[in-house]
């Protein structure tokens, strides 16, 4: 493949088979996948992410009970306890694996919820306009002005629950506003573009105009917002947990850090207890950030990296 071929492949549609009618879905997927794989950041990020998701799904079935007291207190890594044990003698490796699903759950649920709210309020308000828009914009601004973390701490320390749901709801509720503003601004500028007016003249229904004519132009922003909100949610839950706020009974990496801190793992040099969960948080964050950069590279022509063509002999 030549350099020209490589760059034109990235242009939407130049691959030539993107038909609006149902037929070419399979082909479309292939073209999209091929485009994704062209970004090395995207590939690394995706591989990492898929790895963590797999661990979250199948991991708990492969390891033993993470809460059982099975070994000596604060033992370092060994053949029997790969990542050592906790103060009361629990297997840290089991805990690490078991925490993956809880942590990712917080991230993705809070991220999805915040994205949904920002899309509905930002795009809905921007499209509808008038009083509805003014009210929604005011609401977003109020939420935006309220300092996020302090509010989360206050609310989370009042709500007593043995599930992560309140934490998820609070994180989502405090983090959507900035993105809603961005989306509103975009929608306002797109709403009166001629092609949207033309769709109205053609007789398209309102919901179809929003979803088919406006949303595709904002998809890149929405996806990138979502990814950042996932990162933000994971970090926030970890911070809260470290401070001992929110549900501490479900295992997450943040909760592991909290227990490790309480049991003075940091001061006694039991690095095997606090380094692995910290590292996992950092790795998931990096993976998500890489995916986001990769998407940007693919969707934003100005950031495309030139790649020398591979020569096959």
């Amino acid at each position, binding site marked *: 493949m030549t350099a020209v071929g490589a760059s034109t492949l990235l242009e939407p*549609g*130049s691959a030539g088979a*993107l038909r*609006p*009618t149902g037929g070419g879905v399979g082909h479309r997927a292939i073209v999209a996948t091929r485009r994704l794989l062209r970004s090395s950041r995207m590939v690394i990020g995706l591989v990492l992410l898929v790895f963590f998701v797999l661990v979250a799904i199948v991991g708990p079935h492969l390891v033993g009970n993470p809460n059982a007291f099975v070994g000596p207190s604060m033992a370092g890594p060994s053949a029997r306890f790969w990542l050592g044990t906790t103060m009361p003698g629990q297997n840290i490796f089991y805990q690490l694996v078991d925490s993956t699903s809880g942590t990712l759950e917080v991230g993705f649920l809070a991220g999805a919820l915040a994205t949904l709210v920002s899309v509905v309020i930002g795009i809905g308000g921007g499209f509808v306009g008038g009083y509805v828009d003014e009210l929604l914009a005011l609401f977003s601004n109020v939420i935006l002005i309220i300092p996020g973390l302090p509010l989360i701490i206050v609310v989370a320390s009042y709500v007593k629950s043995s599930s992560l749901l309140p934490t998820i709801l609070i994180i989502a509720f405090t983090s959507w506003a900035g993105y809603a503003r961005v989306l509103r601004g975009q929608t306002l500028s797109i709403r009166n573009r001629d*092609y949207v*007016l033309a769709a109205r*003249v*053609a*007789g398209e229904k309102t919901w179809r105009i929003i979803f088919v004519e406006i949303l595709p132009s904002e998809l890149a922003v929405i996806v990138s917002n979502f990814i950042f909100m996932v990162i933000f949610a994971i970090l926030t839950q970890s911070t809260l947990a470290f401070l001992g706020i929110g549900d501490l009974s479900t295992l997450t990496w943040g909760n592991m850090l909290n227990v490790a801190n309480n049991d003075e793992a940091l001061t006694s040099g039991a690095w095997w207890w606090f380094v692995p969960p910290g590292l996992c948080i950092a790795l998931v964050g990096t993976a998500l950030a890489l995916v986001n950069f990769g998407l940007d590279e693919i969707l934003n022509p100005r950031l495309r990296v030139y790649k020398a063509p591979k020569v096959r002999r």
Partner: protein
Amino acid sequence: MSGDAALDVRHLTVEFIQRSGPKLRAVDDVSLTLYPGATLALVGESGSGKSTIVRALGRLLKPSGGEVLLGGRPSTLHRSDVREYRRHVQLVFQDPFASLNPAHTVAHHLARPLLLHAQATRRDVAERVEALLRSVNLVPPGDIARKYPHELSGGQRQRVAIARALAPSPQVLLADEPVSMLDVSIRLEILNLLDELKSERDLAMLYVTHDLATARHFSSEIMVMYRGEIVERGPSDEVILSPSHPYTQLLASAAPMPGATRSALAAARRTRQGARAVRDAERREATVETGCKFRRRCPHAMPQCASRPPDVETAPGHSARCWLFDQGAR
């Protein structure tokens, strides 16, 4: 006039609410009629309200007064009525770079209106799309249909936009400066295409333009608009060659006619620039006022001009809204 009116617009008024000051009356009591197979040109300087008329007729904004009869029937805001109206009244936008969605293929742009107005079924929509593309001379239609707007030239895009407007098989086509954003070399091609389509399909066409020369060439009747009002209307040749209203005279003298010399062009530019200063000053003033709106720029301004001028017929079918032609006033 020949035949029955396709679109009859009576006393159309459009007002915009401004942040400060009184309402801006962008279109003031305008009546016009479009006939099948005929083109009516609407000319006037920037800001006179031409696009606002088109948008109101395209139901993109709500008029504050007046009525619109489609085929003699008033059309309400009822959902099914709006749909029926849209099937018959279509728009071509000014800027083909803005009027096509960059996220969708040409096929999408044409298939949607075809399906929405039951002009095609899921099964034959691809064929109908190709037929539409052929009717606007975009060949080979199969290749063009798969392309995205950014892969087409301005002229090609405007052809796609025209094809989209034709998709529901409308009776009325409203073209708002359809060639002003295009390269000079292809303007005539597009105008000729519109003209052919008008004859083939018996379309009633409204052609909005700044360009008096093409207005005269492509339309049978011309209306001249000034600050929301129609100040003169009549057969094209008459309006251009023997304009009655002082404003039309100004337009005609400021417009470079084909074959104009370099110095004539420079003089025309000076006239236009002088006019712009006055115009800007005017626009800052209150917008709802009595009397002739042109009187501050008019070389023939008289005391009566402070009250609303009448529409006077200066020749059969040719009228001007000006006190100069009122018999009693001289």
